[in-house]
């Protein structure tokens, strides 16, 4: 039995004529301990897919099964790292993390909460900034707080929605390593949504492209059989990396071309004749 299973998911917003279809015919199985990446264009319905899995949204039809049980609402078992950090700006780093610890372990007392929060903040190496407000932190630090907050609930599965999308390349690389380190420590199941193919290959065991909407669906999966721990520079020379990368990019490019072609076909030019306004005398 798969750890997380999506069965024939169909999702649309609105009703009747104003119905917009976002996702259709989504089927996905993730095994325990696996790291899966979903790669797709912006606006292809990635966030909707994430929200279906974490329970913020419900599918119009089809079902989401987590450990064999249908997902009903959010759960502490699935930690979420949002694209835009979503830290509460009036709370310090520590308070933001404690909020999650408290929510996940309501029966413990304050000292336990504090200790746990400190542990996860240390894990993302933010201990010096523990009493700072989010606005005093850089983008990368904020996202690390979000990572600590998600981990602090001790989820069985981590869902990351373009967590590094808004960061510069260097910070991005650092955070990828940190997330991988944490993941490798206790091999939790992880789902990463990204628009960066290289990031997907570097981090995941399996990459699935999302065929963009209006009726987005999942494309064929690509296995990444690179040894862990992976090294970025070595990886660039590896044949396996190159073939996987090229295959995925080719697939995505084909989709892009198809989309463009579609767009071209749809333009119907009116039959007009050029007419001169210069009168000949």
């Amino acid at each position: 039995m798969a750890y997380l299973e999506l069965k024939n998911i169909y999702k649309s917003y609105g009703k009747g004529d104003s119905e917009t279809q976002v996702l259709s015919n989504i089927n996905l199985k993730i095994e325990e301990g696996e790291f899966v990446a979903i790669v797709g264009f912006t606006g292809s319905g990635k966030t909707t897919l994430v929200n279906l899995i974490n329970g913020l949204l419900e599918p119009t039809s089809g079902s989401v099964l987590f450990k064999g049980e249908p997902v009903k609402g959010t759960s502490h078992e699935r930690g979420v790292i949002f694209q835009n950090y979503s830290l509460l700006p009036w709370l310090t780093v520590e308070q933001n993390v404690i909020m999650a610890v408290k929510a996940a372990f309501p029966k413990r007392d304050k000292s336990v909460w504090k200790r746990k929060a400190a542990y996860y903040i240390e894990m993302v190496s933010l201990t010096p900034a523990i009493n700072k407000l989010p606005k005093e932190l850089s983008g990368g630090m904020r996202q690390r707080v979000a990572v600590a907050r998600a981990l602090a609930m001790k989820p069985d599965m981590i869902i990351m929605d373009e967590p590094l999308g808004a960061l510069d390349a260097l910070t991005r690389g650092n955070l990828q390593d940190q997330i991988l380190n944490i993941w490798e420590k206790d091999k939790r199941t992880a789902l990463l949504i990204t628009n960066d193919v290289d990031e997907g290959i570097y981090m995941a065991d399996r990459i699935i492209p999302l065929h963009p909407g209006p009726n987005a669906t999942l494309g064929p999966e690509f296995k990444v059989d690179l040894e862990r721990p992976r090294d970025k520079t070595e990886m660039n020379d590896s044949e396996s990396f190159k073939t996987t990368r090229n295959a995925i990019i080719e697939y995505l490019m084909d989709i892009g071309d198809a989309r463009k072609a579609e767009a071209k076909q749809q333009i119907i030019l009116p039959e007009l004749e050029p007419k001169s306004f210069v009168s000949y005398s």
Partner: protein
Amino acid sequence: MKASSLTLGRVSNFLGFGFFTTLRNVFTGNLEKEDLKKFLRKVIVPLASIFLFILIWHIGAKTLFGIEAKFKIEKALEDQGQAAADALTACIASGESSCQPNTLPSPAQVWESFQSLLRDHHIISADKEAFIEKTAALNKTRIAAGKDAIVYTGRPSFVDQIFRSLQTVFAGFFLALLIAVPLGILIGLSSTLKSAFNWFIQIFKPVSPVVWYLLVFMIVKTVLIGSTEDSSFTISFISVGLCSMWATLVNTAMGVSTVDKDYINVAKVLKLGTFQKIFKVVLPSSLPLIFTGLKITLSVAWMVLIAIELLAQSPGLGLFVWEEFQNGANDSNAKIIVAMFAIGIIGFLLDRLMLTIQNWVSFDKQDAI
């Protein structure tokens, strides 16, 4: 030293007195070209405009005085003949208070009245202290005997009136806060309550302070029937509160109903309970808007207070203005202008106070307007 002056600068900037920092630079000599420009703009220009204002006021008052005096003399000439007119001209020129034309007072007269009001305050407070001292022993025995203590019932001074007005306005403000904030939160949280209250808000929001006063008067009069207590304070602070609470009500409801969706998602993902969600996420994120509402409420409260005190005959600046107007003494007009400035300056200070609190609670520290 440096740290402390830095904080001072920050505090004064916070309060909107940024020119103090510039002024300090002028005196300590750390003046650069940029600072000089800033100094011109922030210090010299306001001072010049104040001076210009007083000048125009002075000339205007002088002109009005001339018109009024001329009219008076001509009237005397017509009614009583040349001798009376000459006597009146001489009387006006001598500055004798009994025959001065009654018109817009000049800045000098207002300043004079201000000082006389201060002197009056000193006399009254000395009087009051003496009275308390005198009755202290007697009051002790009266209280021991179970009787009410004798209290000072003399005329309140101008400063007392100001404090009385502040009391009324703050009582009204807290009433508004106690009603509008909880109600606003409820309305913001539930769309059912929102549609239930919407007509109510829309209809009562534009009602004028005078009508609020009458409404409160009708109700309080009946509620306190048979009581010998003076209800004017109660009536005026309730009217002030009801009149000014709408901004807070609307802002709170809006703040609560438009919490950033990301924060709501966080609350959902963390599976916070309803109470936790309201107190940990919804309320903190709507605090800046709530305080914007409270700021408007306080300034509206101060504005309507004068009218309501006047109607309710409740002691305070409003009553002071009304009594001076009815009084018609030769310095009454000047006293009214003093009260006007007192009202304006206190209103400004209250606004600054609220702005400071608002900046303090707002988490994004964008300058609140």
